[in-house]
């Protein structure tokens, strides 16, 4: 959400270039609009009517007299039509020329160009295969393992992996049958199957004078649903020779299409360091900051220079790898659902960990921003940098622990787990990392016995600190306060249905908590207003976050990235708890009723739609005010009982969810 605009504007300011931001209706108070020198609204919220609306953007350019356009990424950044229109108006497009965009935008064409430029491509055969034996022959030429699928089939449908001749024959039968029956087209695709591939990409930079550089690689293997989650530069996997080979091929591809500006050549790399061209992105990548960290270059600045027609400032030998950089994509997503389903809401509290050294946060939002359904749910890119990978990763742990995001569900629990996972730490990763490491889905951090004690002790100490403060009344009091003098507390703490009896003793800000015979020392400032809870547990420094603390003893703590629900009660209250009736929570989340009489202005869903929690379902107007009715949970729409224009009474059923 405006993140890349903010990033570009930052460099423009450094270079003394005035900026104009374009924005949609709903983004009129967004950060990128505020930081730009001028702003133009290009239409309503749906991207097709605003950020993809070329007419409106061309108008904005004319209106402001802008000389150049940086397209960021996404939206129109790889749209040749847009580049053409700009060229026709004599406006500079900060990116490659139309020809390169077009050539690299076509999967088949780009592959042919790559082949011609001697770039490794995935070996394969696409056409009619006579019989199983021919399939075996082709497979033998390509080399096992191979993937067999119907040419006409999309996605992974009917895909077969064969590791030997026998499996190839079987795969041939299966795939050709399916090709014919499903698509009426018996052409088969037999391609080298890249086992456990890594996604490693090379950043290139080329000027309009035929010079090109490769700025080393970025490893982006940690993905979910083909979207990158954690990236790093350099890769743990590449040796200097492979790196150079990849870099040189990337440059030769750039040269082959007379590329200018910054671009990225993506490769799949197998376990034997064979690498194969995947595609070329003709724009700035989301994950460009990590390349900037290790090379010291400002890619946006380079793009602007190149667009202006300047020659490259650097030679290949000038391009260093200094240290290590890691980027985590912080998303407004629920990581417990398919590694991330979008969530929306208002950022009630938001604090980036910028006070830590070597931390860079690229974001386009601030406290109070709405994460809406219209755009990408990315909150920010959190980049940490260190002399070594260990240092960068340790810094990332701290940064994630100190990152305060409230009001929307976010994926920090997942990010925090990935970066400390032994496989990730050792560099043993592939694009299948997430499904392999979490075959049953992500469940949050699994506490060790020691961590569990730390968490329990922190909750107990926090509880006591809050109890003590609630006895502190200031000012002159007519009736004196007689606080319950106690230095010793017997508490009962519940965590994941486990119940623990704790003894807590206090001296100043230091608490000694006894759990099952083990002593845990916890100390801190106990600032009960702060979202962050920096404490020392048994001598170790930790930053937890207090997400919730209620009068009834409920405490939610974010610890090691994951949020844990605890309940702290006095022993007395805990012992009486057994008499409390068990309650089955009534589920009203699947029924949406009109909260007031009014008229239905719009219904945004139809039966069968999937809606996210908080997503708008319909809009009711009453007293000339529009009230947005939202889904109370993420679910499929079962039935819709109203339509636009209907008059509804209070309590009328509007929509049912499954």
């Amino acid at each position, binding site marked *: 959400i405006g993140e890349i605009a903010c990033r570009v504007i930052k460099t423009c300011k450094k270079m003394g270039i005035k900026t104009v931001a374009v924005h949609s209706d709903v983004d009129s108070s967004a950060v990128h609009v505020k930081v730009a020198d001028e702003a133009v609204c290009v239409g309503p919220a749906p991207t097709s009517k605003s950020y993809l609306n070329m007419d409106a953007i061309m108008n904005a350019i004319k209106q402001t007299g802008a000389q150049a356009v940086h397209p960021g990424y996404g939206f129109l950044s790889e749209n040749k039509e847009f580049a053409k229109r700009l060229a026709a108006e004599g406006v500079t497009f900060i990116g490659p020329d139309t020809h390169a965009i077009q050539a690299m935008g076509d999967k088949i064409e780009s592959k042919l160009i790559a082949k011609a430029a001697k770039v490794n491509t995935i070996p394969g055969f696409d056409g009619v295969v006579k019989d199983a034996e021919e399939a075996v022959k082709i497979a033998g030429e390509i080399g096992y393992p191979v993937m067999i699928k119907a040419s006409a089939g999309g996605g992974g449908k009917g895909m077969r992996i064969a590791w030997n001749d026998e499996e190839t024959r079987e795969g041939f039968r299966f795939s050709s049958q399916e090709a014919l029956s499903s698509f009426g087209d018996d052409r088969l695709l037999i391609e080298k199957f890249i086992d456990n591939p890594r996604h490693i990409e090379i950043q290139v930079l080329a000027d309009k004078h035929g010079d090109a550089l490769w700025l080393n690689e970025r490893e982006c293997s940690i993905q979910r649903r083909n979207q990158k989650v954690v990236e790093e530069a350099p890769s743990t996997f590449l040796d200097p020779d492979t790196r150079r080979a990849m870099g040189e091929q990337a440059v030769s591809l750039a040269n082959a299409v007379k590329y200018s500006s910054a671009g990225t050549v993506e490769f799949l790399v197998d376990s034997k360091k064979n690498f194969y061209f995947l595609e070329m992105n003709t724009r700035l990548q989301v994950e460009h900051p990590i390349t900037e960290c290790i090379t010291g270059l400002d890619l946006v600045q380079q793009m602007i220079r190149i667009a202006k027609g300047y020659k490259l400032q650097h030679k290949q030998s000038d391009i260093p790898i200094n240290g290590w950089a890691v980027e985590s994509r912080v998303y407004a997503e629920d990581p417990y659902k398919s590694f991330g389903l979008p969530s929306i809401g208002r950022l009630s509290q938001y604090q980036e960990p910028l006070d830590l050294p070597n931390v860079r946060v690229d974001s386009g939002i601030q*406290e109070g921003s709405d994460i809406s359904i219209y755009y990408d749910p990315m909150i920010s890119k959190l980049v940490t940098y260190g002399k070594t990978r260990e240092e960068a990763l340790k810094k990332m742990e701290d940064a994630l622990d100190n990152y305060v995001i409230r009001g929307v569900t976010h994926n920090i629990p997942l990010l925090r787990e990935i970066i400390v996972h032994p496989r990730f730490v050792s560099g043993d990763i592939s694009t299948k990392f997430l499904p392999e490491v979490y075959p049953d889905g992500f469940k949050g951090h699994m506490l060790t016995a020691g961590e569990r004690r730390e968490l329990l002790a922190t909750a107990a100490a926090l509880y006591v600190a809050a109890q003590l403060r609630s006895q502190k009344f200031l000012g002159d009091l007519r009736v004196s306060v007689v606080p319950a003098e106690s230095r010793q507390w017997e508490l009962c703490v519940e965590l994941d249905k486990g119940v623990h009896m704790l003894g807590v003793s206090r001296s100043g800000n230091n608490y000694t908590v006894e759990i099952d015979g083990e002593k845990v020392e916890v100390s801190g400032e106990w600032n009960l*207003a702060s979202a962050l809870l920096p404490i020392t547990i048994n001598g170790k420094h930790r930053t937890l976050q207090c997400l919730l603390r209620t009068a009834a003893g409920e405490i939610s703590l974010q610890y090691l990235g994951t949020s844990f629900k605890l309940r702290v009660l006095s022993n007395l209250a805990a012992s009486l708890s057994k008499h409390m009736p068990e309650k089955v929570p009534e589920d009203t989340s699947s029924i949406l009723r009109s909260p007031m009489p009014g008229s239905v202005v719009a219904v945004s869903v139809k039966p069968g739609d999937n809606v996210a929690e908080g997503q708008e379902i319909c809009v009711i107007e009453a007293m000339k005010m529009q009230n947005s009715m939202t889904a109370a949970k993420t679910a499929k729409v079962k039935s819709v009982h109203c339509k636009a224009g209907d008059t509804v009474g209070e309590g009328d059923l509007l929509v049912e969810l499954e």
Partner: protein
Amino acid sequence: MWRGTLGPSEVVVGVLAQGRRWFGTVMSSDTARVHLSVQERIEKKRKAALTGGGQLRIAAQHKRGKLTARERLELLLDPDSFVEYDMFVEHRCSDFGMEADHNKYPGDSVVTGQGRINGRLVYVFSQDFTVFGGSLSGAHAQKVCKIMDQAMMVGAPVIGLNDSGGARIQEGVESLAGYADIFLRNVMASGVVPQISLIMGPCAGGAVYSPALTDFTFMVKDTSYLFITGPDVVKSVTNEDVTQEELGGAKTHTTVSGVAHRAFENDIDALLNLRDFFNFLPLSNKDPAPVTECHDPRDRLVPGLDTIVPLESTKAYDMLDIVHGIVDEREFFEIMPNYAKNIVVGFARMNGRTVGIVGNQPKVASGCLDINSSVKGARFVRFCDAFNIPIITFVDVPGFLPGTAQEYGGIIRHGAKLLYAFAEATVPKITVITRKAYGGAYDVMSSKHLRGDVNYAWPSAEVAVMGAKGAVQIIFRGKENQAEAEAEYVEKFANPFPAAVRGFVDDIIQPSTTRKRICRDLEVLASKKQTNPWKKHANIPL
């Protein structure tokens, strides 16, 4: 009086030992024996009092998901702080076999006394359902009246934990007299000390009027009921089929009737929340609003507020987001959160000091004022004024709700209550107009004209007689160029200037600075003195 509840305490033994020494030389062996038997009887009675209606009834109480009267007090009060009164009081009924020894329970059906909540004094009574179903005897009422009288003299709040089947039928008019004695004290104490009722079981018939007279009524979900007449009587009189829960359960009273101010999950949840709530209240009308240690910087900026009001004036936002952003530690104890949701009221703290928050809720019915929201707001404002709690009002109100339902229901006299309450209040009053302040509703919402001490407007504020469209239709009736006129009206009136140039708002402030400004104002206004003209009592349009 006897301290503590867990078996005979050392204090009692100490006093007796002294007594023995004192009389030792003159005491005959007979008197000594009598004395020892007295001693035994004391112990026996105390023990009996502690077990209330006996183990079987205690077990039955637990089975219902309810705690006993004493367990509740233990949870509500600080450890070892309870000082019990009238443990030896017994009922005086001599009819229907009630005079028999096995029908007498020391302390009868209520536990009374005083104790501390977070160190602060409170008087309490806790009805004991295990003794005659907690029914109210003359003795029961007398015990309650005793602590209420003392609470008023000392100046400390009264908390009642209600769990009673109703009047002690065997006592007849004596029981009714008892209720009236309590009612009278509820009324006398009203505005003198805070009174809180927590309904933890049945409360039916005349008994309901004691909680109704207190300042706050809280309920426990699924185990408490409040009604004038139960489902059986309802059936026989009106032929309606209704369950106890539907007729007078927590949900009914917190969402439909507005009788109860908040409902909690169970006994423990309710009592722990009550402790939390108690910290917001002053002990009496002679005490200032309490100030607690605060970790939230008083000059904290709230950047999120600068973008919270949508640019389209027809779009809603959540007033609670504003409240949470501004108050200390995002902590807001909302009163009646599920009733008349178009107005938000509740307690919070600003730099540690208790404040009452009133805000129109644009998210619900556009934040308009109607009968229920006016009554809800008025009662809250009057409580704050009675107990020296400054009132902070957030205004975004498009007007009063039109319609026959409202007019026939008496929106005129009910709306007048909120107007009256704000006008008569002499506590510090700070008002922030976040967006709309239209028509009469602008006047009502703690406007400058009703002695608002500090009135702010956000840049998004529109103080006007009505919205642009309606106004233009009247001013330019039948004329062409309505759209142009509307634009002119918006330009002229849909902004804070018309109010600001007249001094009706004291300043136009950046929303992100609101917390800082209010904290500073409250410090200055802490010494505010304002009195209304002498009167026997005012005549609020009830």
